[in-house]
């Protein structure tokens, strides 16, 4: 019984030593000191609370989110980058824990559709403006003389004055 445990412990110790070495090898940030709450919040902001709607993990007061923040701290201490941490959570809990859907597959639609719509809107604007300015009108509009603007303004103020004083 104890033998098995001892072997398991030894395996664990050995493997964790290996992990530590392996990480140290390609992650110089490994021996950085424990991450500050601000660094944790930076990452937590990019994740959504899995249980409550509309709150990110940094602002969420629930127990789950506290555990997630702790986990982010661990991952940061291991030297993981922000992106790797986000991928870690997305892989485990699903893409809907990310504040913005990942840019692949169907999710690309969230960005592409508005861009298409805006371009279509601009196109419509250009087309309408072109057509309208070219279209002959029933009432021919005489060109406004270049200094009529100020006069028109003065006239309007005066008109409004008069119509009120009547």
């Amino acid at each position, binding site marked *: 019984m104890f033998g098995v445990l001892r072997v398991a412990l030894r395996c664990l110790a050995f493997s964790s030593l290996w992990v530590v070495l392996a990480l140290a090898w390609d992650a110089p940030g490994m021996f950085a000191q424990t991450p500050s709450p601000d660094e944790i*919040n930076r990452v937590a902001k990019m994740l959504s609370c899995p249980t409550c709607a509309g709150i990110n993990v940094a602002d969420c007061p629930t127990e789950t989110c506290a555990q997630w923040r702790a986990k982010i701290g661990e991952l940061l201490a291991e030297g993981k980058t922000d992106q790797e941490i986000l991928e870690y959570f997305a892989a485990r809990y699903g893409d809907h824990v990310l*504040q913005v859907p990942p840019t692949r597959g169907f*999710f690309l639609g*969230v960005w592409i559709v508005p861009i298409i719509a805006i371009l279509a809107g601009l196109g419509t604007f250009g087309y309408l403006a072109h057509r309208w300015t070219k279209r002959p009108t029933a009432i021919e509009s005489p060109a406004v003389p270049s200094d009529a603007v100020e006069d028109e303004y003065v006239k309007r103020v005066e008109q409004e004055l008069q119509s009120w004083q009547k």
Partner: protein
Amino acid sequence: MIADLGYVALLLAFVLSIFAALAAWLGERHRIIELVFSARNGVLAVAGLLTLAVLIELFLLLNSDFRVMYVAQVTNRAMPAFFKLTALWGGQAGSLLFWSWLMALFAAAAVLSGWQRTRILMPKVIVVTQLTLAFFLSLISGVWALLASPLEALGMTTGAALMAEMETLTPFYQLAFTPVDGNGLNPLLRHWGMIVHPPLLYLGFVGFVIPFAFAVAALSTRQTGDLWIRVIRRWTLVAWLFLSMGLLVGMWWAYGVLGWGGYWGWDPVENAALMPWLTGTAFLHSVIIQERRGMFKVWNMVLIMITYSLVIFGTFLTRSGVVSSVHAFAQSGVGPLFLGFVGATLIVSVVLLFLRLDSLRSEHALDSLVSREAIFLLNNLLFLAIFFVTFWGTIFPVVSELLAGQKAIVGPPFFNQVNGPLFALLVLTMGIAPLMPWRRTSPAKLARLLAWPVLAGLATTLGLLVTPAMRQFAVLPGTSLRIVPVTAFYGLLVFTLVVIGQEFWRGIRTRRRAIGETYWTALLNLVRYNRRRYGGYLVHLGVVMIALGVIGTNFFKVETQRNLAQGESFTIASPLTGTYTVTYEGLSASIVAEDVRRTAAVLKITREGQLVGMLQPGQDFFIAQEQAMTTPAMYHSLAEDLYIILAGWENGGATATFKAYVEPLINWLWIGGLVFILGTAMAVWPTPVEERRIAMATSASGRVVTARS
């Protein structure tokens, strides 16, 4: 017993609203004037009956009659009387009753005020408002439950179950037993912001039904001239005023209560209120073009129809829970019914629009791209673009789950990135528009008007770029790219500001020249006799101030989280005023209300060595709900807020965790909001000139009718 009376009033109101719609329709069609009068009386009776129903509901809430399910859901014995009353809009059934009541009052006011002047439009106005009202009343009067057994007979068991459940949605539904105490109101809602926020939003939502009703009436009676546009102008402004106030108060509440240092989270519920505001604002602007130039008639119809649909859709979003999950949608009958209603009204509107396209021809063409018409068109497209982005981001989770079977969340980063630049462009059109004369202008003329604003704007941008405080952000990681757009945007704000100032100055100068008034009288009279125009400028000024706050908090917010032992302190540097030092002096406990206990941290705040004051951020514990709520503490100044929350504590307060934010320029958002409201109120206020215009439009359309008949 008294609850039964309320229920009867509700049911009668439902039946009468349908009667009024039918009577108005038939009376107009067969020219039976008595029926139209009867319809009008029906509208008034519905308003009366719903007032009675609301009074009875309030009575039940106040007396803690927990046999009534709604009362038990939203109140408990320990709540102060005031909160018991406001619990009327604290839950689903009560909110829908409240909404219906406001709708009934608006409809009655519209019919009474328009009866003499716009008689031709009245029957259809009654039809639209009463059918809308009937739909809402059908949700809370339990009538859909009647469908349960026929559906069951047809073998549609899920549908039958959903409809049967609708019975419990009436605010007068009585339980088989009387609970000892109720659940009480969600603690988050026990704040004055949440007391006034829903009524303001509902007033805004309901208000937009009236212009829509007039639009439909104008279309169907072919009175598509000046009349409906002039009549609905004030209704639209009133609705818009309430909606704007609702949004601002909501932001203020979120900032002061939710304790995350923000005020707008692009939450589906927030978006639901923002979307009709966006299209409504577009409508307010493009209507001016129709008044002045007889253009954009179809477009205006489309805009008001979209706004109406969004009002219903918004109520649906907030009431059905569809966005949090598609499954929540299918668990209640409310969602499918709402969606069906939105779809039906959209289809009817579009068909009507197509049938009447011939009467909506433009009277003028666009003379030039350098004209106010063109700028207004651009402004409309921008509003619609922002609306579409918001709409898409809000419904994308649903679309994704339905079409691809993948859950997703579309959070604030998406909205900020896509809508941010669009809002900036919008401010640009806002700045230029007043300088653009109608029809066309010469480049030289425009250049002369633009000279000062452009110079001031450029000077601001360049000045900020070389200012050390600003440049400091250029070197911070992640912000280096922002410095250019941010300073450019500040330049844009100054540009707009100078344009507005210039407009006021030109008006004052003209008055001084014409009638020799002093500066102050000239300013006062200018505003007094042109409320709409200068009220509009004031609204724009408010927008500039709001934008100032939005940029400040979006780009320059500083935040930090610290765990402190008693006596320890931390620092947080403000980009504008200096470094704050926050010292934790200990915890204190107090009793806020009968059922609320507060634990607060005592913090000493100094800035650059000077004592600023004491702040006490805390957590309120609501005993009945067993729920804790953070209460942020703030130090306000015109430059910024220092905003601190107590996130938690250990060992009886030996150590505690704080989150601190410096929110640059945030108070300009609230000040700008007040200016905005003031400007709108000024534009809404009736002027003699405006009254005369409506009278003229009425007599003109009166002639048309006599000529035809």
